[in-house]
């Protein structure tokens, strides 16, 4: 233990004198702080936008009251009045934005058909999507391995190459102890940095202090251990520094870029997802076709779903709102299977990635972070379901006015349903991911130790 402490002390002394490594460490720290700033700023922007939506809704209500000063036909209100389904970011989303930048965090809804509104939400700058997120999760998952590689690629080889190994091993120091001390120093440094950034992010983002604090920190520790294990495994081959650096960068490239890209292609082929556009087009055809169909035929189909509004009176007028909303409803009903297929296919694709992420530790860890921050695909699908339910509740609110022909008064705005949704963290994905991560860590160290022993014996 005394020797171990001495080696640690001198590793620190060496680090203090190595400007290159210090610069790299500072750059990683700055990147981490920027990641925290980027993530929390993006979440703050989304929160501000969501807050503004409440005002927009209130303004819209005031406009409606002005446009329809007395009692109004609920059909007019349902047509002109809009509200919003909103997906509030979890307090952890600032640490891992996940899909919150590509998927809409609010949907403007009217009483019209739902499906065309669900996917009519292009509010993303595609150039920004191409560049991706620079949040803390990105820094930890993709940049920290590079820092670990830079710090550890030559832990053993540099001693051989600079010729210090014979003199060092002529002291009562064993080779495993020396490698262990060097790895431990670097591990302490990197873990210190990663945990510091995580804690700063948690404080900065004012996350809810629940079990996720432990889960996040455990993932950070295990992930750093994994990459140090990879560095140890390569060092155990006892090759030169150039070989080690190229091998480690190759492994990083494989795990962080190539395998995720191949996984994406494989999953897209194995689990195709029907386009939301096809669904929207079919739904539009049904809705537009509604104008040309006999009104009674439309209403008969509608009453089959809503028997409580059954009315055998023939509509003589050229246009009535209840008929209009009925064929909008039929538009949604015509694509129910397609909509369900679409959502299930997305979920199935996600499930497939969850099974295959054992092939890439960075993909697994990114998945854990997103699940913990409730910013993954299931969170978005949960929001879509919640928005769908909200639209149903709007229909249930307005249909009695429409089909019972009750006038809509200003007081009724106050009891109109409002929407709010915050996804829950997926602890199942988190714990399952941590289990896989633990196995990966164990695997690299066991293989590394076996290689180290085999090479030392020869």
């Amino acid at each position, binding site marked *: 233990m005394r*020797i171990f402490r*001495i*080696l640690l002390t*001198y590793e620190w*002394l*060496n680090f203090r*004198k*190595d400007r290159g490594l210090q610069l790299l460490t500072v750059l990683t720290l700055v990147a981490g702080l920027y990641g925290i700033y980027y993530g929390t700023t993006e979440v703050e922007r989304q929160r501000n936008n969501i807050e503004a939506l409440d005002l927009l809704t209130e303004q819209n209500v005031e406009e409606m009251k002005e446009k329809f000063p007395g009692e109004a036909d609920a059909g007019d209100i349902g047509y002109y009045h809009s509200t919003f389904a909103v997906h509030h970011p979890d307090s952890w989303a600032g640490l891992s934005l996940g899909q919150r930048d590509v998927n809409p965090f609010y949907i403007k809804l009217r009483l019209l058909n739902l499906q065309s509104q669900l996917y009519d939400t292009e509010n993303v700058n595609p150039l920004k999507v191409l560049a991706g997120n620079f949040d803390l999760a990105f820094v930890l998952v993709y940049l920290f391995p590079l820092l670990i590689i830079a710090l550890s690629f030559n832990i053993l080889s540099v001693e051989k190459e*600079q*010729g*210090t190994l*014979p*003199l*060092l*091993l*002529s*002291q*009562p*120091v*064993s080779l495993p102890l020396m490698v262990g001390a060097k790895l431990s120093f670097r591990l302490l440094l990197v873990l210190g940095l990663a945990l510091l950034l995580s804690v700063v992010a948690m404080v900065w983002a004012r996350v809810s202090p629940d079990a996720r604090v432990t889960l996040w920190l455990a993932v950070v520790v295990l992930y750093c251990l994994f990459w140090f294990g990879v560095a140890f495994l390569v060092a155990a081959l006892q090759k030169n520094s150039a070989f080690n650096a190229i091998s480690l960068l190759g492994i990083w490239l494989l795990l962080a870029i190539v395998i995720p890209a191949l996984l994406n292609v494989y999953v897209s082929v194995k689990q195709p997802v029907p386009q939301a556009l096809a669904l929207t087009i079919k739904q539009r055809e049904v809705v537009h076709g509604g104008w040309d169909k006999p009104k009674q035929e439309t209403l008969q189909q509608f009453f089959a779903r809503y028997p409580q509004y059954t009315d055998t009176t023939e509509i003589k007028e050229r246009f009535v709102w209840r008929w209009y909303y009925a064929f909008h409803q039929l538009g949604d009903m015509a694509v129910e299977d397609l909509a369900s297929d679409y959502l299930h296919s997305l979920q199935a694709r996600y499930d497939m990635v969850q099974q295959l992420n054992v092939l890439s530790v960075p993909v697994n860890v990114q998945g854990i972070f997103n699940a913990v921050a409730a910013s993954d695909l299931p969170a978005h699908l949960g929001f879509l379901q919640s928005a769908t339910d909200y639209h149903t509740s709007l229909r249930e609110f307005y249909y009695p006015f429409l089909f019972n022909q009750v006038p809509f008064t200003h007081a009724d705005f106050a009891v109109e349903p409002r929407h709010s949704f915050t996804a829950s963290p997926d602890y199942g994905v988190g714990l399952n991911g941590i289990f896989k991560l633990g196995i990966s860590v164990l695997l690299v160290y066991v293989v590394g130790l076996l290689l180290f022993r085999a090479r030392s014996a020869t």
Partner: protein
Amino acid sequence: MEIVLEAKQLKKQYQDKLALKGLDLQLQAGEIFCLLGQNGAGKSTTINLFLGFIKPTAGAAFINGLEVATNVTKVKEYLAYIPENVMLYPNLTGLENLALFSRLAGFDYKKEELMQYLVEAGLPAEAAARRVGAYSKGMRQKVGIAIAVAKHAKVLLLDEPTSGLDPKASNEFSELLLRLSKAGTGIFMATHDIFRAKEVGTRVGIMREGELVDLLATSDLNANELEKLYLNYMH
């Protein structure tokens, strides 16, 4: 006298080459043994076996009565080593390098004591606080000598230790070896330098193709005779 270094039928086979053919040798405390031989004769292999850097194919090496192969780390407490080309941590100063190796050896010296070891080894005092990366080979060699001396080991293993030293420094090194020998350190030195071997050695061994072909007491012959004998074996 106490035997501090011993080889018993020590053999080392490298794939198709037998580098050391059953070496039998004993070194007593205070004795200086010089091993002469051409490049590839097996001198460095012998030293590496005593250091535990390589494992013997057969036989055993002992340091202070402990078998090296089974006590690789423990025997390092009793020996110090100066390689042909001392390489140190380039980012650290000479003083810091000496402090590191001394601490690893179990000696926590004060700065003044470390400085004294360095100056005694011939390193200018003003160089001690400079980064080793800027040192010449001779300066590094002197730090290596200071590291070995500061360890107060029972056995000193030297592999061409004066390589890179100027004649004055080489002479001072010889005097240092004699002082250590008087203090009871057993010294095992592999060298090409016949005259220095004759000057400081108690005994001289001549090694050829992994075999100790002759073993002489330096008191029995002069430098010219030793050179003649050595050259005869080499041809």
